[in-house]
């Protein structure tokens, strides 16, 4: 691919200015995004180690990795807490979102660059508390911290909870920043409904981050107060109510799953349009469905408590609202598939991961119907069916979309092209590994296999259970292997990859109008705003890649 120096400048945000201090105190959203990317990569690696420990332990009945259930309980707690608070929540908004959002607006930075830096520091600080938790022997409550178990256990609950509290502020700061940036810094010509759909995803996420996270913060603070001062809030022994905690906790944590999935859906909307060379189908419905999910997501938390002893009336209301939130997700899927119709589909790694997202999120969403329905919920509640369901949505969903986004924007972030084959093989491995890992968990789950069991030697009436567990473990290693393969392929491109052109995919959103990697100030002049899903300006050439077929001057601000 031919690249000019204008495409690929020697002075860019990565090397201008130089020095450790210039990174630690940077206000550049791109550097902050990149540092977030490094931190979440460390976190996901750590979480994956615990995931493999869990899977290995469960391969055969009886002790496998450890003969201590107490240690196993720490594995699954740390796996959950690290993956949720340090990876799926921040992965897309804080790293990729931070990098791309101002570029997509043709802006120089986010609205509050210093607040952005504060968000990064708070994240690192919160992460340090999680590392400290590990050093203190871990925590064994499950990532949900349910009292009275969490009030009584001698493990490092307080440290972990303080960590999550701090991470919450990082999340709120990022949310405020994105919300204000999208409201105030859209360039002339970019009305609300001319915005890239990734920004709609980030916008919905920002609303949830701002409104829901404080509830988690207060809840965790109350838990610390109960543990350290013995004030009875949630522990029945002290006069508290354990179910109250569940209400508070899920009031945040259910909307939080939409923090995790909305930006993922945004990435998929971008990638599917670009790599099928088609205008996204049903733009407004996709945009509105992001808002609908963000708002309806606040009213479904009670579906986590269908067997907690809440009244049947409350159960009925939450079940109905839960089904309502299924609709906008399905609308998105239909629109993505329709977008493919009559396209010129390029199965690049980003596209492979996006199509995989549609498959895996489809399974995750549809199995949610069993959980939303009251009668069937009772059977699969607290079984490995639930574990499979949320891994299909959160791990399969968010992680594959994150990888899709990473492959999509990698040339912009690093200035290098990666090997397509590496990415495609990685996608294949992840797809096979992922489904092998979690499909068996659906099966043993609807047969009644309880979740969070250290051992299943006493679970004797589930047909073929050991076989399913072995398949799941083999799949787990394949899945992690696929992600490692993807990472190796990307990292080696830093040395071996060709220099990236400014717009390697012939995309129409504004981030592709600045160089790869962008200069510190992003754009010398505000770029002209067009329709971000019309790709007529760029055509694919077998040798040269995407080439511009219209003159720059033909870009007009059409309103």
């Amino acid at each position, binding site marked *: 691919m031919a690249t000019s120096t204008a495409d690929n400048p020697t002075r860019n945000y990565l090397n201008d200015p130089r020095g450790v201090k210039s990174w630690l105190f940077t206000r550049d959203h791109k550097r902050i995004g990149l540092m977030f990317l490094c931190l979440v990569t460390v976190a996901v690696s750590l979480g994956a180690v615990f995931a493999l420990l869990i899977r290995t332990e469960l391969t055969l009945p009886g002790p496998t990795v450890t003969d201590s*259930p*107490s240690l196993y*309980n720490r594995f699954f707690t740390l796996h959950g807490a690290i993956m949720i608070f340090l990876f799926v929540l921040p992965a897309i908004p804080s790293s990729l979102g931070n990098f791309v959002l101002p570029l997509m607006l043709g802006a120089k930075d986010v609205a509050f660059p210093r607040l952005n830096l504060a968000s990064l520091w708070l994240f690192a600080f919160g992460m340090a508390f999680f590392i400290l938790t590990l050093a203190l022997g871990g925590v064994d409550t499950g990532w949900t911290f*349910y009292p*009275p*178990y969490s009030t*009584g256990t001698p493990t490092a609950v307080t440290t972990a909870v303080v960590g999550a509290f701090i991470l919450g502020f990082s999340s709120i700061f990022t949310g405020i920043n994105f919300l204000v940036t999208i409201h105030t810094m859209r360039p002339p010509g970019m009305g609300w409904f001319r915005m890239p759909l990734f920004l709609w995803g980030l916008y919905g996420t920002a609303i949830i981050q701002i409104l829901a996270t404080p509830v988690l913060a207060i809840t965790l603070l109350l838990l610390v107060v109960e543990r350290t001062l013995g004030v009875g809030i949630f*522990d029945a022994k002290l006069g508290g109510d*354990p179910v109250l905690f569940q209400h508070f906790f899920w009031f945040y944590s259910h909307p939080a799953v939409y923090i995790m999935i909305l930006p993922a859906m945004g990435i998929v909307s971008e990638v599917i349009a670009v790599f099928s060379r*088609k205008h996204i189908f*049903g733009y*407004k419905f996709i945009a509105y469905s992001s808002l609908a999910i963000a708002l309806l997501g606040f009213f479904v938390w009670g579906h986590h408590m269908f*067997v*907690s*002893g809440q009244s*049947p009336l409350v159960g*009925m209301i939450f*079940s109905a609202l839960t*089904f309502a939130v*299924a*609709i906008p997700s399905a*609308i998105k899927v*239909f*629109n993505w*598939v*329709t977008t*493919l*119709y*009559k*396209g*010129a*589909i390029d*199965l690049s790694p980003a596209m492979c991961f996006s199509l995989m997202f549609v498959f895996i999120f*489809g399974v995750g969403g*549809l199995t949610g*119907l*069993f959980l*939303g*329905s*009251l009668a069937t919920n009772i*059977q699969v*509640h*607290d*079984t490995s069916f639930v574990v499979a369901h949320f891994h299909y949505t959160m791990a399969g969903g968010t992680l594959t979309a994150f990888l899709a986004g990473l492959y999509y924007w990698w040339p912009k972030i690093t200035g290098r092209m990666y090997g397509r084959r590496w990415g495609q093989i990685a996608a294949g491995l992840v797809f096979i590994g992922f489904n092998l890992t979690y499909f068996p968990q659906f*099966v043993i789950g609807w047969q*009644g296999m*309880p*979740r969070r*069991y*250290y051992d*299943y030697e006493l*679970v*004797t*009436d*589930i047909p*073929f259970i*050991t*076989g399913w567990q072995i398949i799941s473990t083999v799949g787990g290693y394949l899945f992690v292997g696929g992600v490692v393969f993807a990472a190796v392929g990307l990292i080696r491109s830093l040395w071996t990859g060709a220099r990236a052109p400014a717009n390697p995919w012939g995309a129409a959103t504004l981030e592709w109008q600045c160089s790869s990697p962008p200069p510190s100030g992003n754009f010398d002049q505000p770029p002209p705003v067009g329709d971000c899903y019309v*790709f007529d300006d760029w*055509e694919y050439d077998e040798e040269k890649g995407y080439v511009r077929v219209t003159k720059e001057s033909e870009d007009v601000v059409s309103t």
Partner: protein
Amino acid sequence: MIDAMGGLPLGAWALFAQSTGSFWMPGEHSTFAPEVDRVFYFILAVCAFFFLVVLGLMIFFVLRYRRRPGVKPGKTATHSTPLEVGWTLALVAIVAVIFYKGFTAFMEMETPPQGCYEIRVTGRQWAWQFTYANGHVDDVLHVPVDQPVKLTMTSQDVIHSLSIPDFRVKMDLVPGRYTSTWFKAVNPGEYPLYCTEYCGDKHSQMITAVVVHSPGEFAEWLKGANDYLENLSPAEAGKLLYTKRGCVQCHTIDGSANPNTPAPSFKGIYGETHDLVGGATVVVDDNYIRESILEPGKKVRAGYRPIMNTYQGLVSDQEIVALIEFIKSLK
């Protein structure tokens, strides 16, 4: 008890050890199991349909419309309000039906009929206690067939959850409040009963059985179950209670330390002098054992934490005597 459930050492491989379930669901052994399964299969059919349509179209489009040299993408509409509104309404209709089916089946599961046989359930780390009307306490749930049974449940420590997959029954046991559930078993036999809310180190061992007795057999069992103290020596009865009341979950009787749930072993402690938390000492005698069962937090042995809950109201005087004699016998 676990062996009685038909488990081989690797019982996991034993296909259909107990229930005649399918690939999808365990056997239907309660009155509302078939109804729950009907909802399950309905949702499964809806899922299969949508999944195959979406996946089929996706694969077809990807194969049919792969990027080819010289072939430009087609110009198609970028939106279609009738299409969007159409599939939105279709979705609303489908989820409304699923909701309604799930809700009506659930209401039956939530509404115990008149004349239920009532059993109290107490969960604790890590044992089940089923208290019957005549005062008998058991660690296995015995119920009559073809009679509705209502469970009124609470927990003494953390949250537990009672799950009987073959009956499609699940309900949390929450400390400080009572929850209830009910079922009507339709086939005599033994079925597994699991704890499904994470409750600590022995969560995966908090498993027992439901024994469904054929008509007439239940009353007989209940009468006999309460008499066992009469027919055994106190030490023998104590040995039975040691398992039935869940002492076994934390206290060993061979002098070994339990690494996961630190509690003193019973072996040879009778007559010993122990240091207590706080510096005092105590001689392990009848009175101290009785007090430790009823008020376990009062005099805690040095080196241990006050993690045990009271058995006040869950053991009779006769049973306490039996336990004392059992501990005495462990030389």
